[in-house]
């Protein structure tokens, strides 16, 4: 499955994922397989943001973790800055890791409770031999703290002394201190209060403008994803079902799953909410151990036809740069 998004062809591609697949063996016999990520392909250009959305269990986080090689890919290729990193061993990966960093969902769980904020932010610098010891890292750490809206007085404090929003700032500082090319943001704002979410999103956007970082932004808050992303990919049961420019996907969703997902977003406007015709999705996401045959969405799809339960639809271009995997198009 090869596809080309024309407008990004001319720009430099930071990350390319080709037919990425990750299966987990489960059960004592190891015969059952969780199809966490199946045949996912996309490209991410320098300084751009690709949003990945979908219900829990759709494989968006597994996809991110496979890209960053926390999980070993089952098949497919991961190409970072032109280098194929799919089969690099841990030692060869070491210099590559400097280029890709991750921001996690839970700022309470992802910061070491026994390290000071300075040590947390300095750790990547030590790991990559930029400084020898953490206490030599102040020249990097202090400006970074100020950059993320904290002060250098915060450096000697521990994570538990901070609010959720401040902790997430520490997480961002840790991810960005190495000036990576690619940052994977796995639900970076879901655990934060509404008024704090906007602070963190603005901070991420500022860094992107300044340093030209690319983000793979994973979230289930679709209105925020639209706001931060240049392109948006929709995943369902391990597969990418639709991907295109962010505004296009919201204005003109093609896949019935995308339509349903967008129809489920609560609108913060009571008049519109009463008027809107809701195309919601019935039922629950099926088990990824035994995904439905054919199109995986056909069990919940209001437009399903006989062919949908037989043949898996190929990803095809339904409009300029608008890729969708559905038999209707």
């Amino acid at each position, binding site marked *: 499955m090869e596809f080309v998004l024309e407008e990004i062809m001319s720009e430099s591609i930071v990350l390319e994922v080709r037919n990425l697949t990750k299966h987990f063996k489960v059960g004592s016999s190891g015969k059952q397989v969780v199809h966490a990520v199946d045949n996912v392909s996309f490209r991410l250009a320098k300084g751009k943001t690709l949003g990945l959305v979908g*219900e829990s269990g759709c494989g968006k986080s597994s996809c991110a973790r496979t890209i960053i090689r926390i999980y070993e890919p089952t098949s497919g290729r991961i190409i970072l800055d032109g280098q194929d990193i799919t089969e690099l061993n841990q030692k060869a990966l070491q210099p590559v890791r400097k280029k890709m960093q991750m921001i996690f969902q839970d700022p309470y769980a992802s910061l070491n409770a026994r390290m000071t904020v300075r040590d947390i932010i300095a750790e990547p610098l030590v790991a990559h031999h930029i400084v020898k010891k953490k206490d030599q890292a102040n020249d990097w750490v202090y400006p970074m703290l100020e950059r993320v809206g904290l002060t250098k007085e915060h450096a000697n404090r521990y994570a538990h002394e901070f609010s959720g929003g401040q902790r997430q700032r520490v997480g961002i500082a840790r991810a960005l201190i190495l000036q990576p090319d690619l940052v994977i943001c796995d639900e970076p704002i879901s655990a934060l209060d509404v008024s704090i979410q906007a602070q963190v999103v603005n901070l991420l956007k500022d860094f992107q403008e300044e340093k030209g970082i690319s983000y793979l932004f994973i979230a289930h808050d679709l209105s925020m994803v639209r706001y931060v992303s240049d392109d948006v990919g929709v995943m369902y049961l391990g597969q990418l079902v639709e991907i295109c420019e962010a505004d296009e996907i919201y204005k003109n969703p093609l896949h019935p799953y995308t339509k349903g997902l967008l129809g489920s977003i609560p609108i913060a406007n009571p008049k519109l909410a009463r008027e809107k015709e809701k195309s919601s999705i019935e039922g629950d996401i099926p088990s990824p151990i035994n995904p439905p045959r054919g199109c995986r969405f056909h069990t919940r799809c209001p437009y399903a036809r006989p062919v949908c339960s037989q043949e898996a639809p190929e990803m095809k271009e339904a409009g300029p740069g608008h890729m969708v995997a559905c038999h209707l198009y």
Partner: protein
Amino acid sequence: MEPILQVENLKTSFFTSNGEVQAVRGVSFSVEKGDILGIVGESGSGKSVTSMSILKLLADTGKIKEGTILFEGQDLTKMGKAQMRKIRGEKIAMIFQDPMSSLNPLIPVGKQVAEMIKEHHPEKKKDELKREVLDLFSRVRIPEPEKRYNSYPHEFSGGMRQRVMIAMALGNKPDLLIADEPTTALDVTIQDQILKQLRGLQKEFGTSIIFITHDLGVVAELCTRVIVMYGGLVMEEARIDDIFEDPKHPYTLGLLASIPKLEQDKGQRLSPIPGSPPDMTNPPVGCPFAPRCPYARNICAAECPEFKEVGEGHRSRCWLLDPEAPSDHNPFR
């Protein structure tokens, strides 16, 4: 119309080793029959403590210091444990955020729901209970209720578990349902299904609902009235349309500005509320929002404004609404 619940000047504190945490500092509101009241606020605003105070389910360190909670004419704050047990689950039911930790993992879900009905109606026979539970399960649209009756909570998805909780809450046809962030842990698709169900059930049974959430979108879709809480106080109360079209508090304005609009221009930055919420062990003397308020004046930090009527069914707590407030740099003039 006679309100079914009337909370007056409720003050609840937690007494911890770090001192008194004044979680709720004088909250008043009422719920009328058939109302769906939304309580909106950030973590630490006191919204959950308010609902826990109504049900008297506070942790051991928590205490209602002052105020009355009139439910159908009776003051809940004066009730003993045995009386409260009769009310909880029978007259007032509650749904929590995390259905997994609210269900017993060792008992089949059908039996758990049946037990709850039996607690209040010990005269009901086994067959009758089972029939009622199956009826509830199909009402909240749990597929194959007969088969699911004997399933354990871990065999259910998050959305299905929340349906079991709703079935349990509705088991005794309560007059008031308190839902504390019941959809926060769920996917938008499942959230949508649950909201639809709550709306339907409210229409069918006329149950009044208090819906606690931080999501203004959910409020817009579900509620008829809203109170906005901050720092243990109600900052604004209004009918649903008014809160979105004519907000009368800078905090509400800030909340509305921090969510991206569907048509938000990407080049335009979001306007977050700077800073973070106050520490409730030492709450500010003035308006709790003053340190983060872009319109704050000297008086705001010195003295807490009163909660005043600003329109029909619309009340707000802000010095900018005072008739003597200057009109420059004032969003309400």
